[in-house]
């Protein structure tokens, strides 16, 4: 982690914006019937339903950490 290159934050956000748009398109194209569809990556198989809940939970945990680290530097609500 420490060895991660000092990237440009705005490039990173641009990448995230593009990923977010792509993810929204996938969600818009999904149907109710596809909720139990199984996706496999490596040795792990999960349903579309699980992925939808998990993405919110995982990303939000990291957001909570980002906000926490900011708070450690800047103080409460700064």
């Amino acid at each position, binding site marked *: 982690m420490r060895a991660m290159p000092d990237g440009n934050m705005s490039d990173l956000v641009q990448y995230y914006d593009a990923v977010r748009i792509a993810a929204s398109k996938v969600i818009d194209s999904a149907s109710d019937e596809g909720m139990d569809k199984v996706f496999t990556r490596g040795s792990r198989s999960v349903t579309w339903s699980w992925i939808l*809940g998990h993405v*919110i*939970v995982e990303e*939000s945990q990291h*957001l*909570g950490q980002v906000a*926490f680290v900011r708070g450690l530097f800047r103080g*409460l609500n700064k």
Partner: protein
Amino acid sequence: MPSFRDPIKSGLNEYYGKLKQTVEGLTPEELLWQPNPESNHILWTVWHMARVADRWANSTVLGNDELWIRDGWAEKLGMSTEKYGRGETPEQVRDFPSVDISLVLEYYDVAHASMLGMIDALEQSDLDRDVFAAYRNESLNIGWILGHILAEESQHLGQVAYIRGMQRGFDG
């Protein structure tokens, strides 16, 4: 069965299961440790997460009394019936009573169960309906609320895990 129920319940159970693992084995001192004077500690954060679950499910969406009041959890934990955590000062967090985490988790268990019950009680058409959140003085869409609960609770879980990591080290 409406298709929104499974992903929401899966997310609710995921963060809740992970929270249980994250607080496992922590001492009372570790639960109350603050990395700086303005930081929340783990015990306060877990208690607030339970209050969030109870309020959204029982009060705001279902329009019933909170379990905090109805089932006497405020009294059991020695806190006021109004105490919720939103906007509390660093002093209030610091002076939070050193209650037993297992009692907080007992309250959270019933609040979490009521949240799962709320999801089962909602139909697809309810997602477009608005409810009035008195403590925020605003009307909110139920569909928005379901996404928000996952996002809000998971943010707090991330913070709990971070504070644990600061004390115990990576994966400690």
